[in-house]
């Protein structure tokens, strides 16, 4: 899932300082399951904002809505009738959701309430860890299902470096050394020979380096004349 975290109340308050009437829009997908921007968080943030403005001797109307998926136009179309009556839209979606709203409602000011952090999973209750950076050319089959792009602090493809100790990365005592895990796992699977191959330099052109990436599926595009 996409994992996000709420910005500080102060920062959000500052963004909205000129607004009187705001629509807070949550998203029912990734940010709901990581407790950052679902219906509950929309409620808590909206309530906090209203009270904070009142404490400042002012007032702010915050209406709340949570759509199933902010990153798909179909799900935000329903907001079209109401959106114009607001001074601003506060999105509790990930960065994709924020941009979908901005694209769909180009006249509106859309503010992000979240910092979108990474693609990851909940490793335990209340803890999320990054697992993929969308490098565009997955090599998990070579690394025992452990991603060195997102989990090795130096993105090594032939690790570990000399700073790995007792399973911990030299960079941070709370971070496991990805390459220790890779060697251990492939060792247990009897596949060390696989690690003796020098993995050649990565072609980063599949990654983030060339402007935004696109996927086009001709089998799924609408034929001329057909409406979606």
């Amino acid at each position: 899932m996409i994992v996000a975290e709420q910005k500080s109340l102060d920062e959000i308050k500052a963004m909205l300082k000129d607004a009187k009437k705001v629509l807070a829009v949550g998203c029912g997908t990734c940010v709901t399951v990581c407790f950052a921007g679902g219906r509950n968080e929309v409620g808590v943030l909206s309530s906090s904002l209203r009270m904070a403005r009142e404490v400042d001797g002012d007032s702010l109307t915050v209406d709340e809505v949570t759509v199933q998926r902010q990153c798909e136009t179909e799900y935000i179309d329903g907001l079209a009738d109401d959106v114009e009556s607001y001074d601003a839209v506060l999105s509790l979606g990930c960065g994709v959701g924020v941009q979908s709203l901005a694209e769909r409602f180009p006249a509106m000011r859309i503010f992000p309430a979240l910092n979108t952090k990474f693609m990851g999973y909940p490793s335990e209750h209340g803890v999320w860890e990054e697992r993929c950076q969308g490098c565009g050319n997955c090599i998990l089959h070579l690394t025992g299902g452990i991603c060195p792009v997102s989990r090795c602090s130096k993105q090594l493809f032939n690790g570990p470096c000399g700073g790995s100790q007792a399973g911990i990365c030299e960079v941070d005592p709370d971070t496991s050394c990805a390459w220790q895990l890779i060697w251990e796992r492939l060792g247990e699977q009897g596949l060390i020979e696989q690690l003796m191959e020098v993995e050649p330099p990565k072609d980063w052109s599949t990654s983030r380096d060339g402007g935004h990436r696109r996927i086009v599926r001709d089998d799924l595009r609408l034929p001329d004349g057909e409406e979606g």
Partner: protein
Amino acid sequence: MSPETFKPEVVAFCCRHCAYAAADLAGGARVSYPPAIKIVELPCTGRASVLEILHALEDGADGVVVAGCLPGTCHYLMGNTHARQRVDHVTELLKKIGLEDQRARMINISAAMGAQFAEKATEFVNTVRELGPSPIARGACRGGPLGGPGKAPAMDGREGR
């Protein structure tokens, strides 16, 4: 408003298995606690959410107390522990909002502790009285879910917690 004339409104979220029964006991034994306390019965304090505590404050409560079983005696094992985590979260939020964090509190009590319930409740009401009225106007401009019945954006996702 001076502390003498100010009558705080306090909402108490009480667990049915302990605090709610204790409040009953206090009433029966004629141990008095301030009438300002509005008791909301919950099956367990684990049911109290951050959002409900905030809404109580936003809707005009001067203080909110969450009253659950003694540590280790929750009928659902950890409900009171979760409640404490949430109350702690609320007090942090209150500071950020600009309200006094003493306006929310967790207390632990057993069903047999009628007198203690009255005592703790009175103490909390006194604390709130000292703080004075909440700066949040009662029932002011609370927005809320957009759109009444029949309106398009009733496309809520799953409930968070």
